[in-house]
């Protein structure tokens, strides 16, 4: 895994997970990890193990809920799904992110 990949910004993993679940619907941990890496075009370095504490945290906060299900290849797996509270949180965090990144981009362009 190359050194050119960007690390995930602190605090943005939650947002990525919420967005992924929003797009994919209920999904297991492995699926979420693969999706994030695919979409990022393998440009993000995701330590996939960190996904699990993050999922647990989101669950403890009531933004996702999980239940056991069966994967495509017929194995037992835990599926995570957005809750209505999680959907509200996603909207909130998305708009925050857009605002903040917009500002940062503007500053970066201005000083360039």
């Amino acid at each position, binding site marked *: 895994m190359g050194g050119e990949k960007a690390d995930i910004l602190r605090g943005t993993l939650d947002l990525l997970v919420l967005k992924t679940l929003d797009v994919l619907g209920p999904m297991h941990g492995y699926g979420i*990890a693969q999706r994030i890496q695919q979409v990022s075009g393998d440009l993000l370095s995701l330590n*996939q*193990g960190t996904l699990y504490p993050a999922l647990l945290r989101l669950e*403890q906060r009531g933004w996702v809920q999980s239940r056991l299900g069966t994967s495509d290849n017929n*194995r*037992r797996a835990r599926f995570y799904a957005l809750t209505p509270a999680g959907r509200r949180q996603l909207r909130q965090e998305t708009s925050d992110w857009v605002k903040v990144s917009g500002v940062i981009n503007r500053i970066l362009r201005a000083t360039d």
Partner: protein
Amino acid sequence: MREWVMRLLSVGRRGRRDAELDEEIRFHVDELAHAFEARGLAPAAARAAAERELGGVEHTRQAWRDQRTWLPLEELLQDARYALRVLRRSPAVTASAALMLAVAVAGTTALFTVVDAVLLAPLPYAHADRLVVLYEEYLTLHAPGVSVTPGNFLAWQSRARSIAAMTAIDLRQQNLTADGDPVQVNVGAVSRGFAATVGVPPNVGRTFADEEFEPGRERVAIISHALWTTRYGGAPVDGRTIVLDDRPYTIVGVMPPGFLFPTAEVAIWVPLPLTAADRENRTGHGLRAVARVRDGVTIAAAAAELHDIAAQLRREFPDSNREWDLTVTPAREALVGNTTPVLAVMIGAVALLLVVACANVAGLLLTRGLARSRELAVRAALGAGRLRIVRQLLTESVILAGVGAAAGVLLAWIAQPSLAALRPAGFLTWKPVAIDARALLFAAGVAVSCGALFGTLPAIVASRTSIAAAATARSSGRGAARLRTTLVAVEIALAVVLVIGAALLAQTLRHLTVVDPGFHPEGVVSMTVSLPATRYGADATVDVFYRTLLARLRSLPRVRAAGAVQALPLSGNTSVRPYSIDGAPMTRASPVAHYRIVTPGYLEAMRIPLRAGRAFTDEDTADHPLVAIVNETLRRQAWGTRNPVGARITFGGSTGRWAEVVGVVADVRHFGPAAPPAPEMYWPAAQLDTLTTGGADTLRRMRRGLTIVVSVTDGDPLVVVSGVRAAVRDLDPSQPIANVRTLTSLMSESLWLSRAAAWLLTIFGAAALAFALLGVFGAASYAVAARRRELAVRLALGAAPGAIARLVVRHALAGAIAGVAIGVALALSLGRAVSALLVGVTAGDAPTLVGVSAAVVIATAAATWIPARRATRIDPNTTLRNAD
């Protein structure tokens, strides 16, 4: 927020979810490995790459667990679980440690409930720390605590700038009639300023209006919550009329529960109008006074101002005030001041007991910690930090303390009735003495600090043992044995202090019970009557009542004698007057004696021995020559060795009428066995009207409210009470009797504080001594075990078993003797604290000190007997062959 709730809920729960995580991670890795294999990696390499991609299976699992619960708490719980296992593994050590702690915590908690009720619970007044109780002080006699004259009270009230409010109280015993059975009640007539002084409004209704303190408008009453619930069942009473001594009063309010003023007995408050005549009355001492010090003024500053005012009054009114100052006492001290020295000693005692218990448990844990040094070494080798090990050991101590404390609270709860029995029935508290939430919190605090106290030392010692030393050494216990001997010496020193204290208090109690009270309390019952002034205004009516009543009582079966007195011994009441003898004029320097107004039959009923002359008879009435009887102290004080019978005495006042001394009686311990007898004179009640001038009203009032004493020929004197009640009702149907008490119960009650102190200290001392001896036994046993090889070598080289036993005993005794010496020195330096509680014995009493020391040393020697015998039975052969 929600996240934290979830995390705390998961603490200590290893559930399905954790097992499922493993499955989830396995699934993830398997899927990743598949993907890598599909890209052409060999299966093993694919799996390794998958785990790398995940960031390590174990790491992931750990990170997930960290998120799942709150780690510090999780670790604490682990420690606690482990501690419980360890404690269960050595039940003997755990049980004895917990038992010692239980006893110490029980003592501490029980005492806390008392201290909390007496010293800590707020008084039932607003900002009670601003309240002070005022008394007058008769300077020539150094007699503080004399009740206040209305004139002086009004002068203080109008002049003192540092006082926000002040009220005078006239305590009366009156008959409450007209609704239900007639009863005698304690009434507090309070002057203007009552509401502002106490600062507590009635629970129901209103307080007194300003105009209700005008003469003629004072027929309103506020009643206590207790009277409201017992007599009126808590029904609405506002506006209801009650009758006190034949006068109607309208109830306007009910005070809150727990309110008391100025004593717990007062059930009804009425206004006390103070008039222009009262303003000039500076000789009739009869009121109590309570004042509220203005905010921002210290009590000391207020006291200084009041003393200045007393000095002004001495200058302005030399005739009445020349010899009078006043005293200022904070309200709490005035209410419970007599118990504070005892409580202070008891707090000290129970603290010492707690330290002894902690030292003992520390000793136990110290040696057990060494026995576990290998286990700890293994834990250290496996990577447990020193701090982690100390924390583990401390957790064990605190859990042990918690178990002990829980048992202690239970013990205190069981012991509560016996503890309550030590207090007299009327013991004043405005908060019940009970194991409540505060007491539980206190016990928990004690447990945690004890656990920390006795856990720290062994934990540090044990954690210091290095891995190498623990793995090889067998005699690392040498230093610990020395430390334990030191702990035992400390325990003995503190136990000696407590035992000496207990011995001193026990001697005090013995001394007080054998003191001759001057009367025979057996077979005597007392009760009070109070004849209302409305119907008993004339002196003759009062005399006829008592004369007829007593004659009837004497005719009752089993009654030996009957009489009456205005101030019964042990009642706490007294009155004093100056006197003069043999025609000498009364001067300001005239000495003062206590006086007792009595009827014929009083001396006989109390069996107060007559030393010379005669007792009063029914002939000693107003139209016969005035007579008096003096006690031996007054005889010594006034006549020296001369016989006073036939001599003359006068009691002051402007008439200067002289009475003939007709008898001398034995001294009575009027204020209980601890107080030396005072000079006393006895006057016949029937002759009062011919000698009273100044303060005639006070004397008349006293005569209307005498205490009747009836002595029976045999058996329980209480059986005659119904007969007395019937005789009184026969004479006056609306006249109740009250305060029925046997003299033996009054005697026993007068000793309650000394008895409670002696008992408590005996229990604490015995417990401390038992702990210390257990410590001696444990330390000696451990020393023998630790020196096993050395002793075996000595035996192998031919040492006699007796010599070995002496070695062990001598070693233990050395520590014990040092402990005893320190203990005696400590007891001597603490002597001042207990000397206030001692009567008939001093804190430095040599026989007590020597006796206790000898007993403790002998007991120590006895406690080492079993370990010493064990030492002589060491078999050198097996001991020296076995490497371990």
